[in-house]
């Protein structure tokens, strides 16, 4: 067990934790924007999955990782718009719509993947975002290798934290968005277009979830495997609640889940006592415990999950 406490092990562990936290964080930031506008999109699991696939398609056909990331963003935007149409325009149930997107994405990603790369195995390796050491910062002992030798998309996820926080809490747009999420009727009375705000919010959320998918295929692995998202979208949803709908809070929860995931992956290789299947449950058990932990302290946007219909129905 002393192997766990060497500095090499810890640096390795935390640097993997940061890397594994990035897709959770990116998706969680998108979900915060959507939920702050009052839309609960549990379809981000499916958006991550399809984003991951189209990232590989884009990178494979163009030979350029940037095109891959862009295709993932576009995929996410389209799925976000579909979600918005059904839940905002038609007033359909948000959890059911999100579930439908998850089922659709699981089927479609497997289908298109097998169509493109055959029935077995994985896609061939595509152009991806390589780790990029930031000059000077990367040389800091301990901190450097953990935070500053990551890939571009990982940096982007963390850079988006202060940007999202600034947008939500320091701009007029952010204020309108939160007003729509907390009290759509009042926001409407003030002249804020509730429908447009929610469309924009959930589309932006979809784009970030798609980009989160591209982190899985263009930064972590440079291949796609079936169901590569493996529940990360759901863990991101939990990170939003655990982080109490704040970008900084979501960052810390994503880091917690990321390090837990990295820890169980490492235990699998060094420990013969606890079998792999039990260790693999750690992030999921932690998610449930995290939700129990914030009971009574987490207050969602007041209209979350409720459609807003102008003619006096809804809230």
């Amino acid at each position, binding site marked *: 067990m002393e192997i766990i406490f060497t500095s090499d092990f810890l640096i390795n562990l935390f640097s993997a934790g940061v890397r594994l936290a990035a897709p959770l964080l990116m998706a969680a930031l998108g979900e915060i924007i959507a939920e702050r506008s009052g839309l609960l999109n549990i379809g981000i699991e499916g958006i991550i999955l399809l984003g991951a696939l189209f990232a590989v398609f884009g990178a494979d056909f163009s030979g350029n990782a940037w095109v891959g990331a862009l295709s993932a963003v576009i995929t996410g935007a389209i799925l976000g718009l579909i979600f918005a149409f059904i839940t905002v325009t038609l007033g359909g149930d948000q959890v059911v719509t999100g579930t439908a997107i998850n089922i659709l994405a699981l089927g479609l990603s497997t289908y298109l993947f*097998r169509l493109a790369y055959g029935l077995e195995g994985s896609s061939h390796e595509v152009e991806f975002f390589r780790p990029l050491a930031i000059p000077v910062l990367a040389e800091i002992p301990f901190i450097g290798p953990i935070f500053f030798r990551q890939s571009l998309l990982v940096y982007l996820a963390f850079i988006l934290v202060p940007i999202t926080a600034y947008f939500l809490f320091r701009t007029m747009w952010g204020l309108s968005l939160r007003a729509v999420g907390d009290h759509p009727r009042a926001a409407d009375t003030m002249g804020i277009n509730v429908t447009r705000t929610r469309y924009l919010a959930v589309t932006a959320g979809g784009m970030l979830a798609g980009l989160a998918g591209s982190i899985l295929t263009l930064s972590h692995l440079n291949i796609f495997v079936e169901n590569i998202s493996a529940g990360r979208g759901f863990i991101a949803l*939990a990170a939003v609640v655990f982080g109490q709908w704040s970008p900084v809070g979501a960052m810390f929860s994503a880091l917690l889940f990321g390090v837990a995931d990295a820890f169980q992956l490492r235990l699998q290789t060094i420990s013969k006592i606890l079998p792999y299947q039990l260790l693999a449950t750690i992030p999921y058990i932690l998610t449930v415990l995290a939700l129990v932990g914030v009971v009574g302290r987490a207050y969602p946007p007041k209209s*979350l999950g409720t459609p807003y219909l102008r003619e006096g129905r809804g809230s």
Partner: protein
Amino acid sequence: MTENLQPTIPDQTPTGKTNKTFMSSLTNILLPLGAVLLAMLVGAIPIAIAGVSPLDAYRELMIGAFGSKFGISETIIKSAPLILAGLGFAFASRCGLFNIGGEGQIYIGALGTTLVGITVYGLSPWLAMPLAILVGGLFGSFWAAIPGVLKARFGISEVITTIMFNYIGINLVAYLIRGPLVEPPGYFPETAELAKSTWYPMLFGSRIHLGILVAVLFSILIYILLWHTPLGYQVRAVGMNAAAAEYAGIKVKRNMIIAMMISGALAGLAGTNEMLGIQHRLIEAFSPGFGFDAIAVSLLGQNHPLGIVLSGILFSGLRAGAGAMQRAVGIPDAIVRTLQGLVVLFVVASTMLPQFIARIRSFRQEK
């Protein structure tokens, strides 16, 4: 996530049948049919992308599912777990809860059944089989009860916790069949074979086993429970409007936990079905996602037992025919799950459409 998430429930009051007009029962049939047709229309696009004529693909799908004695028996066999797990999702839905944890409950239910099956050697089938069914249901029920209690006691969204319990349950089973429950000498990740006295008997001299009758029996029981007992009335009242139900003296939290337990028991029985009817031992990945398919089955069936039986047969037909289609025209069978996702999207959309049109009209009249 402490708020109540209200699922889409077709237009019915807790008193149900009395105010159901002819028009609303007609739309209850036409809307799901329209959703299926639209899904097949949109699903034609990915099939055409593969360079295959969608008509050919769908024809092979239908022939594979319903065109031969073998196809029909496959369809019937595969419909049982979908109907049972679909009933499970529907029951929680009727109480306003989303039990997305069917898949995990299926695995834990199968575990319960297996524990009975590998210990009751020598017991009469009249005792062994009911015991295996009962324990399977209880295990599934327990696995859903935890998210149910977390929801009722602490207001933690059952949406996320049931999903987390899927991963925990599936991994737990994967561990047990390699560790404590592995069949000696342990070459394969599987348990010993269940005692033959627990197996579902075969029917009609075919591969069809007792499971389909169990599924139909439970559909009838759930219908009676929901619409002809005080418990069913309370569960539906909570699902319609929890605050009003509370005001009327109904114990909302208690009903939520009970609804989750019944929901989990039904999903667990889907796992039992696979153990006693098909696999006869606990293995990994015995469920190809029945728990998720069940959501589509339940929604297409309008959360009603009769609708669930019909949509369960439809979806199992798609699944049974998918293999034949893949062999005949080279379309990956994953298209079936794509179609299911599309069906659910169109069901949600079409359920809202009448209200949407009414809103647009009233809007125009104001102007």
